[in-house]
């Protein structure tokens, strides 16, 4: 007697799906952030290598995308090998990338004229497989383009990051469209970590995980990358469990 489809339980189906995905999903390695709360939210405990991710700035920050760029630089800094950074406007300041852990020797800039060329160069970089990361600054990203990038990255150890930045706030609507990115992040600035003396403390960001394939979205309040590209939990949140609890509750969405 043949097994009717209805007899499969949910767990059996999950197992079957896992078996289908065996080739890609399980072989894939990840790049952990080193922050347990953050890594726990991501499938397999970190940012997937050989995959394509998206980072945008939140609010006004999207236009200059400064925080998002540093977030991407921090991720790229923790990979191995050269980093390809495709830009359309040459306003990225290399010393700042060095301060986020990305030494000038490691970054190769490609000044592409438009989004289309940026995407093509990124795809070429991902397909090559010898890079640590390929970052591209684009305003628009279609489903087809993101799908191509994801396919190009698969099976390699290169991480692909699309840095979404647009000239006008009205163009932000494109960020609402679905893409094939493995994870999507939004990074916006928060007032810096208070110091006991006057002055600007360590930069602090609100890092929102808007979408994670096979994961849930969440948001975190983190301190900006240090000079090795690592993010950190703000000290006041670590030492004040009550406050930390409050933020975890808020993060469930």
């Amino acid at each position, binding site marked *: 007697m043949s097994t009717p489809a209805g007899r499969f339980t949910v767990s059996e189906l999950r197992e079957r799906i896992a078996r289908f995905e065996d080739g890609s999903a399980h072989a894939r390695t990840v790049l952990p952030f080193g922050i347990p709360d953050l890594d726990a939210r991501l499938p397999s405990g970190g940012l997937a290598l050989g995959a394509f991710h998206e980072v945008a700035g939140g609010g*006004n*920050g999207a236009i*200059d*995308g*400064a*925080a*998002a*760029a*540093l*977030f991407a*630089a921090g991720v790229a800094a923790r990979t191995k*090998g*050269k980093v*390809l950074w495709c830009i359309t406007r*040459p*306003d*990225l*300041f*290399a*010393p*700042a*990338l*060095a*301060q*986020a852990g990305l*030494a*000038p*020797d490691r*970054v*190769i*800039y*490609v*000044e*592409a*004229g438009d989004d289309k*060329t940026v995407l*093509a*160069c990124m795809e*070429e*970089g991902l397909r*090559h*497989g*010898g*890079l640590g990361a390929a970052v591209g600054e684009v305003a628009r990203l279609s489903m087809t383009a993101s799908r191509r990038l994801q396919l190009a990255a698969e099976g390699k150890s290169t991480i692909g990051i699309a840095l979404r930045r647009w000239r006008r706030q009205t163009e932000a609507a494109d960020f609402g469209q679905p893409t094939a990115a493995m994870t999507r992040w939004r*990074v916006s*600035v*928060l*007032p*810096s970590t208070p110091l006991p003396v*006057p*002055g*600007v*403390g360590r*930069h*602090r*960001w609100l890092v929102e995980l808007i979408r994670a394939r096979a994961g849930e979205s969440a948001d975190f309040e983190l301190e*900006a990358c240090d*000079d090795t590209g690592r993010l950190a939990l703000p000290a006041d949140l670590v030492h004040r469990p009550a406050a930390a609890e409050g933020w975890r509750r808020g993060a469930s969405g």
Partner: protein
Amino acid sequence: MTRVVSLFLPTWSTDRLRRKAGDAAPPAEAPLVLIGREESRRVVLAADAAAHAAGLHVGMPVTKAQVLVPGLIIQDADPAADTEALERLAAWVLQRFAPIVAADPPDGIVIDSTGADHLHGGEPAMLDALIGRLLMSGVAARAAVADSWGAAHALARYVARPTFVAPLGHGASAIAHLPLEAIRLPASMSADLRVLGFERVDDILAQPRAPMILRFGPELGRRLGQALGQSAEPIEPIRPPDLIEVRRAFAEPIGAVETIARYIGKLAIDLCTALKDKGLGARRLDLLCHRVDNRVQAVRVGTAQPVRDSKRLTRLLCDRIETIDPGFGIEVMTLAATIAEPLACRQLISSLVEETAPDISDLVDTLANRVGERAIYRIAPVSSDVPERSVRRIPAMAPDNAATWPNHWPRPARLLARPEPIEIVALLPDHPPVSFTWRGIRRRVKRADGPERVFGEWWRRDAELAAVRDYFRIEDDAGERYWVYRSGDGEDASTGSHRWYLHGVFG
């Protein structure tokens, strides 16, 4: 669409003579003419800029020139050497600018720049680079780019100051206002036309063509057609004798993309064998496809390091296959290593001991051929405190040197190309701003760091002798962090204007 650059060297003979003489050359302000015999008369065959300014011109009797300009330097002309030097210059242009180049004697070079300009950052940038390199080596030059050889030739000689870019698909309009001589007519013919009252190109264009040709001969029609781009004028590319080149002729013209790709692969293998015999690697490759209609389609690719790997070369060439228009078919394909350099052999690092860094030079080559060599770079530190001077571009494949910037002060992720003036409320001399207005939005400053004082670099410009900038890192209510500076130290007006600028945005 074909694009042709015509390079005009107005004082080529005298420039060449001065360059050859080196330090012994007559000073630039001394008028110099080169003379030769025209039947029994001694006439001026070339005059430099100073001689032109003194009123001398080519074709003038030497005795007259001597009377007009006291202290005139006279030397014998050597047209054969001039032509030979022009060929050498054309070979230099071939290596650096475009795959199809020919000498256009007596005083010009013609370059088919179709599909080559993007590697130099566009047509205006390409012309500027070309002219600039020649001027630096002491050769006066003007250049124009147009849709046909004839039009470019005319524009370079009559319009370019020193460069001119005719719009794509310009037709007759670009050359219509030029004098008759611009379209390369024999001197006697243009003189005859002038007698009949024709002065400019559009005067002839307005006339019915057939009676004109009947009266003046087919040469007029041919030159007009060439100038307007109606009749073909193929450029016969120069081939320097030491060029490493392989060639394949087809019994039957080919046109399909797969066929072209297959033969590129075969040519690449042949070329690599030729390179191997000489111990060289290719730095620049030119693929020329000669079509049955006598046009040549060219593809040029460059590599960051010498390469002798036929697979890689094939890949680079095949990336640009869509730019080849086979027309009715290609009958001959040639592949040349225009620039070849000694290939340094390296010992492989044992993979058992340490990890080898993946070789990405092939990726860099692929991208450089797509976006241009200038658009792919690394940024290296320069020891300068002035932020915009602390970075410089180096080639993407430059060796790693682990140099970096000092890490005393945070630097913004985005640096504005030009600092933007902001309205500010601040206590002088050394307090950070209290509030500021940038792009019409007023922000209150919550926290600030600074000042970081940057002194002007007096060894660069006198104006920077006393100049000072005070940089502050400021954070507003919403947590946005900016890099602002005050020009001047806040006390002494000679150190700066005391205006405030926003120079960057922190993440």
